[in-house]
């Protein structure tokens, strides 16, 4: 999987993409906390093994790259359910310089178009902890709508408490309709 837009790229990670920046993100509690993942200190070899675990058919590990700067800036996880033509996405921007960077929006839109038009996905969704406001903002920005609250859906790695999550979703039909409005507005 690979696409480019406005100087940024999203593509399948390979073990050779393991780098010090990615290791630092995994070890950063501020980055891992909102994802409910423990900060871990891995070796470069362990990171390569982690990357190699993804089959990149149903479970994709994708890297976000600033092609101009030539560096990895974030990670996208994509789980595809081919039977139901649905995909669950989660992501984080590891490089803080790119938080809120509007230059990434065209890539996000191109990624959605790729999933809906080329991968045959009919439903996109994500699950976000109720207090992860940055990710909620990202879901809203990408046009996903809140569809429900999952009470105590996951267990906190920190203290074992149960954490509520929101489910956000976007149907291809809604995406197509929204896009046609946007195109009409731009004319």
């Amino acid at each position, binding site marked *: 999987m690979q696409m480019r837009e406005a100087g940024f790229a999203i593509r399948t990670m390979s073990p050779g993409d393991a780098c010090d920046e990615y290791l630092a993100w995994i070890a950063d509690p501020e980055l891992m906390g909102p994802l409910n993942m423990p900060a871990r200190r891995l070796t470069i070899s362990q990171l390569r093994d982690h990357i190699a675990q993804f089959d990149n058919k149903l479970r994709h590990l994708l890297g976000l790259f600033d092609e101009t700067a030539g560096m990895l800036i974030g990670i996208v996880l994509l789980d595809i359910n081919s039977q139901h033509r649905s995909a669950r996405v989660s992501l984080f921007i590891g490089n803080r310089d790119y938080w809120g*960077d509007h230059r990434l929006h065209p890539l996000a839109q191109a990624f959605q178009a790729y999933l809906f038009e080329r991968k045959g996905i009919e439903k996109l969704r994500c699950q976000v902890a*109720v207090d992860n406001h940055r*990710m909620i*903002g990202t879901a809203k920005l990408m046009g996903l709508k809140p569809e429900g609250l999952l009470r105590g859906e996951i267990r906190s790695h920190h203290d074992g408490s149960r954490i*509520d999550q929101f489910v956000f979703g976007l149907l291809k039909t809604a995406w197509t309709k929204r896009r046609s409005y946007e195109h009409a507005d731009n004319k």
Partner: protein
Amino acid sequence: MQTTNDGLELARRLLAGALDLEEDTIDAQAEIAALQGFDSLAYERLVASVEEHLDRDVDPLMMVSVDTVADLGKVLSQTEDQNQ
């Protein structure tokens, strides 16, 4: 008691601060996520400014269901009434 108009004016003020916009450019019927300047950090700032204004945490379910500027205005006026 807060009126819906008070809530809407407050919503515009908080959005203007979070998104770095002029208040009078914010249309009541506009979808917040479609406003110029909206992004993940702007949403985080908006939630923080709503909480700061109310001096308490907001109900996540209430906040996540806010879609338009007018929705935010209604939520703010209802929440302020509950505070009084």
